[in-house]
């Protein structure tokens, strides 16, 4: 350590006090020579003779300076600065080259920094302040349902209590959940047990966190810890907020503390505040839940845990599985009628990453993003190959200069450092610009494409900066490889003789190889873009069975407000009337569920089918609908009729079924007029009066579309939603409608209005992300590769100016020259395309699961990529070819 310090001090002195040190050295040597001279004069030499003899004795002063300075480590630093200055001067002389390279690198770095930021957030970075990341896990459980294993992450409170009581392998168990709807702000509120604060290593900015004693059913405390962001935005960061009360649902909570900046617990988004879960659940979920809190009926929060020190993942998994089994037996004993036997359920626990997107099953977005990181690295490699090519061109153009410097005795090591200094300078400029671009455009991009919030800009995030630094080093090494290889081959004599011109077949081969590499990598990206764009087209073309444009889903959240059925019906009616009265609204319907937001499952009983065979047909969805339902949704009734006001309570019971239900239940008969009973074989017979087209309700990519519609008036209670068709753009109406309807809600309740298009955007995000990013990167790659090819062809034309001149002098026609030049470019591209397509063909099956309705070997995508690159090649070859054709043979030959 002290050696390093001393070395640093010497270097610092060498740099900062270079003049002083040099002057001291010169003084000392001058004194030496002076005293030698005096001694020699004393021996009887004349002053001139003595001076000459003293200098001879001393030796070469200049060399001694050099050696002495080497010994002091000055030279290395000075050389380095000199290399950088030299490189900077060189780059300044060729601004077009410099700007081209810096922009290319900036694009590569910006793409990587942006994508890295997102991937890091989704897959690698633990939540801020996590105390022991290596021992912390999200806990999942697996159970076998209908013969297939399913993984769950939502727990019942009683299960959590059981596990916390019996588990010995875990230090901490954290129950954590978020729920929307603080006051009327529609902000997200987090609920957790007090272990949350030990799971993290965070100290409150002000006040304190809540304690286990405050997190109790009875005699708990209504206390709240605000998130830093919420505190800043809602209370201006005033510490006087501690001790104030805020209204959450119908209750007053006392603010006891402020969480530190960036702390979001285990939530994906920054919540407004953190509440003790046992206290808040009753207020936020509703009184019904309080009644069943000791049952195993409702699962609603996630569970995280920290292994005790020294306990392996395997041991903890086994131990938690035993604890889960014990809890399950307790459940069996308490609720035997709802609980399948443990032998068929085979429950076991899974310890996974703290990060939800890693999960036991990675989310679609995280898988696409991981691919994007690979893609952005490919873009970077293409950029590097391009820059390497340009640097190589420079090295070739400077062959004569380099040969002269070698002949003058400049060491090859020094030239190597010169090349490295040049690429380091370029890479640093490129990386800086890239980070600025990522800072400005990155967060916009992330917001547009990702459900991730709280991403800081590229330049303010240390991890992204470190990553970008690594990338910069990578660029320096990769992009200087080709010119360095060329330097190693420089033959001084030959270069001086040929005047630094003439052919260098080897260098052209390197250039052609780099060109082919760029083309092949671009092909891979363009193929990927084609596959994702086609997938997205297929997704967009899926017949949804409803007209998703201009639909708003209105969710009244009653929460704590306890309403009897009469006042609930009155509220429903007044919401309907108010919505209908809004001038922007075309039509309104009641609906028990809206697409992609859950559904009620039912089991139909019909003559000739036992329940076991009906269950095998799939899950049947029960949809309660008012007469305006089909018109509002835009779902066509293909046979029979929809509902009318006549289908009221007390009238003959009717149902409408989807086409899929009609075909499944009555394969060889007309469904209209058939009798269908719901839920129980003894239920009333409902007559099928209509068949509607199939809709996508639960999943967009695969949905059986087994829909059974029951008139709202005949279906009993349980209306939770309104669906509204607006006259113009739904999202612009959403907020005014929400405010309009919120006034009707009882105290403590609130209302959420979401455009259906938002929900559809959520379920199609992974494809859209893939299509947008692969297209952007693919286009970027193709452009960079085209520029690279342009360089290759253009250089070739310059090099072969003589040859072309002679050919034309000998009577070659313009067409022959075109064939010569374009042929060369096409050869490079053909190689690249062949290699790229082969690699894409091999790799593509791995993105198969992310595609939709298209084979990963879709011929169109491959052909399209090949054609795109061939066109890019022709465009790139255009200008150099035009120049070649215009070559004046006389000029070319005279130049010799």
């Amino acid at each position, binding site marked *: 350590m002290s050696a390093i310090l001393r070395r640093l001090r010497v270097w610092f002195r060498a740099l900062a006090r270079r003049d002083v040190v040099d002057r001291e050295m010169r*003084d000392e*040597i001058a004194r*030496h020579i002076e005293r030698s001279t005096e001694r020699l004069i004393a021996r009887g030499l004349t002053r001139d003779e003595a001076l000459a003899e003293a200098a001879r004795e001393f030796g070469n002063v200049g*060399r001694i300076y050099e*050696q002495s300075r080497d010994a*002091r480590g000055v030279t290395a630093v000075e050389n380095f600065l000199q290399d950088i200055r030299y490189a900077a001067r060189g780059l300044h002389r060729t601004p077009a080259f410099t700007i081209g390279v810096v922009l290319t690198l900036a694009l590569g770095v910006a793409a990587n920094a942006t994508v890295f930021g997102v991937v890091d957030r989704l897959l690698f970075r633990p939540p801020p302040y996590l105390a022991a990341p290596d021992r912390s896990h999200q806990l999942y459980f697996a159970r076998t349902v209908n013969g297939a294993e399913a993984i769950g992450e939502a727990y019942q409170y009683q299960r959590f209590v059981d596990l916390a009581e019996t588990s010995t392998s875990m230090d901490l168990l954290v129950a954590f959940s978020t729920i929307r709807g603080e006051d009327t702000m529609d902000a997200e509120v987090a609920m957790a047990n007090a272990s949350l604060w030990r799971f993290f290593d965070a100290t409150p900015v002000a006040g304190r966190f809540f304690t286990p004693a405050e997190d109790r059913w009875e005699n708990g405390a209504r206390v709240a810890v605000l998130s830093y962001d919420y505190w800043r935005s809602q209370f201006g960061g005033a510490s006087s907020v501690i001790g104030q009360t805020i209204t959450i649902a119908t209750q007053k909570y006392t603010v006891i503390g402020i969480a530190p900046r960036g702390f979001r617990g285990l939530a994906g988004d920054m919540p407004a505040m953190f509440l003790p879960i046992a206290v808040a659940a009753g207020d936020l979920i509703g009184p019904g839940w309080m009644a069943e809190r000791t049952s195993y009926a409702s699962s609603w929060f996630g569970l995280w845990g920290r292994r005790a020190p020294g306990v392996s993942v395997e041991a903890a998994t086994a131990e938690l599985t035993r604890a889960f089994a014990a809890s399950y037996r307790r459940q069996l004993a308490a609720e035997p009628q709802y609980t399948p036997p443990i032998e068929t359920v085979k429950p076991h626990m899974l310890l996974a990453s703290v990060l939800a997107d890693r999960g036991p099953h990675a989310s679609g977005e995280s898988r696409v993003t991981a691919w994007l990181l690979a893609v952005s690295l490919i873009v970077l490699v293409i950029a590097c190959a391009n820059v390497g090519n340009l640097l190589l061109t420079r090295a070739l153009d400077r062959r004569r200069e380099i040969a002269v410097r070698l002949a003058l005795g400049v060491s090859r090591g020094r030239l190597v450092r010169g090349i490295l200094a040049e690429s380091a300078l370029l890479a640093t400029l490129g990386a800086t610009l890239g980070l600025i671009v990522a800072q400005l455009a990155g967060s916009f991009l992330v917001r547009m494409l990702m459900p991730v919030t709280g991403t800081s800009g590229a330049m303010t995030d240390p991890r992204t900066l470190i990553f970008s630094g690594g990338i910069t080093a990578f660029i320096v090494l990769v992009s200087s490889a080709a010119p360095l290889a060329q330097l190693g081959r420089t033959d001084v004599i030959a270069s001086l003789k040929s005047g630094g011109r003439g052919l260098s077949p080897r260098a052209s081969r390197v250039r052609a190889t780099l060109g082919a590499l760029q083309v092949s990598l671009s092909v891979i990206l363009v193929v990927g873009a084609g596959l994702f764009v086609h997938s997205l087209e297929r997704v967009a073309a899926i017949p949804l069975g409803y007209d998703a444009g201009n639909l708003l889903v209105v969710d009244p959240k009653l929460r704590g407000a306890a309403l009897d059925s009469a006042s609930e019906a009155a509220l429903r009616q007044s919401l309907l009337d108010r919505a209908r009265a809004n001038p922007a609204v075309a039509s309104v319907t009641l609906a028990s569920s809206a697409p992609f937001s859950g559904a009620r499952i039912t089991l139909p009983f019909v003559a000739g089918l036992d329940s076991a065979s009906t269950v095998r047909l799939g899950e049947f969805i029960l949809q309660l609908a008012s007469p305006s339902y089909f018109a509002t949704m835009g779902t066509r009734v293909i046979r029979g009729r929809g509902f009318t006001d006549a289908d009221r309570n007390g009238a003959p019971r009717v149902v409408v079924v989807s086409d899929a239900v009609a075909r499944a239940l009555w394969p060889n008969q007309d469904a209209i007029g058939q009798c269908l009973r719901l839920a129980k074989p003894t239920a009333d017979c409902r007559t099928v009066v209509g068949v509607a087209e199939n809709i996508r309700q639960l999943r967009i990519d695969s949905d059986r579309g087994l829909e059974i519609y029951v008139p709202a008036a005949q279906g009993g209670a349980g209306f939770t939603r309104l669906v509204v068709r607006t006259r113009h753009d739904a999202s612009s109406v959403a907020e005014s409608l929400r405010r309009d309807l919120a006034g009707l809600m009882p105290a403590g309740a609130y209302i959420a209005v979401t455009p259906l298009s938002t929900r559809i955007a959520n379920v199609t995000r992974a494809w859209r992300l893939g299509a947008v990013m692969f297209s952007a990167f693919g286009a970027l790659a193709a452009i960079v590769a085209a520029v690279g090819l342009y360089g290759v062809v253009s250089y070739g034309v310059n090099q072969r100016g003589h040859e072309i001149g002679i050919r034309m002098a000998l009577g070659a026609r313009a067409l022959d020259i075109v064939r010569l030049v374009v042929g060369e470019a096409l050869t490079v591209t053909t190689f690249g395309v062949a290699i790229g397509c082969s690699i894409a063909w091999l790799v593509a099956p791995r993105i198969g699961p992310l595609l939709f309705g298209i084979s990963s070997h879709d011929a169109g995508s491959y052909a399209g990529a090949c054609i795109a690159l061939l066109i890019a090649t022709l465009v790139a070859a255009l200008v150099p070819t035009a120049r070649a054709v215009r070559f004046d043979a006389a000029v070319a030959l005279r130049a010799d």
Partner: protein
Amino acid sequence: MARDNASLLPGTLDLIVLQLLSAEPTNGYDLALRIQAISHDVLNVNAGSLYPALYRLEEKGLIKAAWAQTDAGRKAKVYSVTAAGKRSLVDQRDTWERFAGALAAILKTT
């Protein structure tokens, strides 16, 4: 020139400098003269290798330099051995003596 350096085995200059400076701190010029005098002109150390050696030892922290008034009243850079330099000298001297003893023994066998 050739004779001067030929008589100096590689690595020995550092040992000589350390030995002489540990006896008495002095400046570069007087050090050169002293090497010559003590070795009876056998070792004529060229300034061209002495000064780089001094700077190298200084950088390694084995000797240190200070500007001081000479007897003649002029300023000169005076070198002295540091604690680390003394330790290094002991090591190097041992090594050298073992080496010289072994070499002498070999040369005596006929």
